[in-house]
């Protein structure tokens, strides 16, 4: 099964023989890819059906909520924490990021860029909250309660003194440059770290 492009990038970037927590792991596709390369990958997932599917695959996944249940993990329990396409759904993204960097010295964080040109155009021309491929749900029922842009994220990590070790920007499935990312990236992945 082909991994979602952002997950494929993360799977490629995590070194073998590390310990990883995938926060919001769904039914365990990324965990499966990580295990294939010898990573001790575990998961946290809110949806019981997804958790059941992942455990049925032989994975170690705990049903829980990224907003509250990261507190149960001790400091430095993992080498990497992963939060893919979930940041914008959390109650307090800044606190979730702080938790990720408490339980692991490094974290991959990916999110849809709310400043992508299609999003900007939709808002500019129609005056309506955009519904796009990566943000497919209308404003009143979207789980995405904290829309974030590439520029916003860069500013947050700067203000909080968080390091950025690497970043990937995707337009569709294709990479796009950091310089053009605020406009052109539909989707961004940051590898952040404690400084």
């Amino acid at each position, binding site marked *: 099964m082909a991994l979602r492009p952002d997950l494929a990038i993360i799977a490629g970037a995590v070194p073998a023989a590390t310990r990883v927590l995938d926060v919001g792991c769904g039914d365990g596709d990324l965990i499966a890819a990580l295990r294939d390369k010898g990573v001790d990958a575990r998961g946290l997932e809110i949806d019981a059906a997804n958790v059941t599917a992942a455990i*049925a695959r*032989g994975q170690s996944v705990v049903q829980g909520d990224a907003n509250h249940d990261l507190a149960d993990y001790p400091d430095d329990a993992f080498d990497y924490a992963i939060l893919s396409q979930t940041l914008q759904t959390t109650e307090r993204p800044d606190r979730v990021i702080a938790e990720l960097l408490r339980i692991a010295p490094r974290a991959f964080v990916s999110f849809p860029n709310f400043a992508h040109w299609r999003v900007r155009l939709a808002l500019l021309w129609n005056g309506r909250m955009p519904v796009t491929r990566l943000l497919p749900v209308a404003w009143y029922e979207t789980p995405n309660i904290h829309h974030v842009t590439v520029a916003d994220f860069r500013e947050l990590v700067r203000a909080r003194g968080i390091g950025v070790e690497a970043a990937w920007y995707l337009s569709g499935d294709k990479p796009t440059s950091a310089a053009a990312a605020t406009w052109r990236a539909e989707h961004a992945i940051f590898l952040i770290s404690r400084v």
Partner: protein
Amino acid sequence: MASLLHQIRHQSVTIDRPLPLDSGQALPSVTIAYQSYGTLNADRSNAVLVCHALTGDQYVASDHPATGKPGWWARMVGPGKPVDTDRYFVLCANVLGSCMGTSGPATPDAATGAPLGMAFPVITIADMVRAQAMLLDHLGIARLHAVIGGSMGGMQTLGWAAAYPERLASAVVIASAARHSAQNIAFHEVGRQAIMADPDWQDGQYYGSDRAPTKGLSVARMAAHITYLSEAGLTEKFGRRLQARDAKSFGFDADFQVESYLRHQGLAFTDRFDANAYLYITRAMDYFDLAEPYDGRLAGAFAKASDVRFTLVSFDTDWLYPTSESRRVVQALQSVGAAASFVELSAPFGHDSFLLDVPALDRLVAGALRNGG
């Protein structure tokens, strides 16, 4: 009834070594009745220990010798089932203190030959686990592929991880807890008092007489049975429907279907269970608190179990061993870095869900037993 029960022959082994007990006492030797399914492989690495619940027994996947009913977990254990006996050597032992062939209050005193009754020492979950470990030693099984159990079986499973972390690769704990709550203890006390208030109990020395405390045991079972079901389940199954009558009797017969059902459950139970065993095993459950030796810090119990893979499952309608108790175990496991899985399944049957048709549970158990690393 109890006398008939004790005439059944069970496959068992008597180990002539003392079994030290948490109470400070010791049993000079111990008899353990057990059933096995499947074949132990050449390197003895495919053994799965199933731990049974309070009123369960070793007949996990074979017909019950007293009732003739199918094994209590026949839906889970067997060829091609989640606990696949084509792959695993599955063992289930009657717990210490019970009444299906393992040493318990009906066991004869070595000196007099009379049943011990209340002279049998009070035992704990850890004592049950210690007895199971002696059985494994006897069978030459150093390490288990998995230990799995629901309810009190889950307590034994947690007890295994705490006492013998090096002897198991995986632990599957279903609808269970690492301690008995005040509410749990309270319900058990009602059951025990019902038994001991029955004049036929005779201070536990009823084995030789023609009377046994079936009324008390029956009431104990009725009270306990309610705790195994959900309110919604009871309402759906019985509502306020009347039992084989068109109108209320204005008397104290079983007017309601739910009354009739409970009376039947209570009475049927006395055919297959011994009242003293019920006292001893409920006591063992009440004494269970894995965190107690660690000043209430549950993580202490799992300090050496970080290499064991844990899978915990709770059910949303189980108010006897609620999800919060499973979560407490998961938190302790995470704090020691153990690989833990946990999910709360939705099922309508209350605590009894672990015994019933919950397809998601089947998938979970099969996955948990697979070598996922």
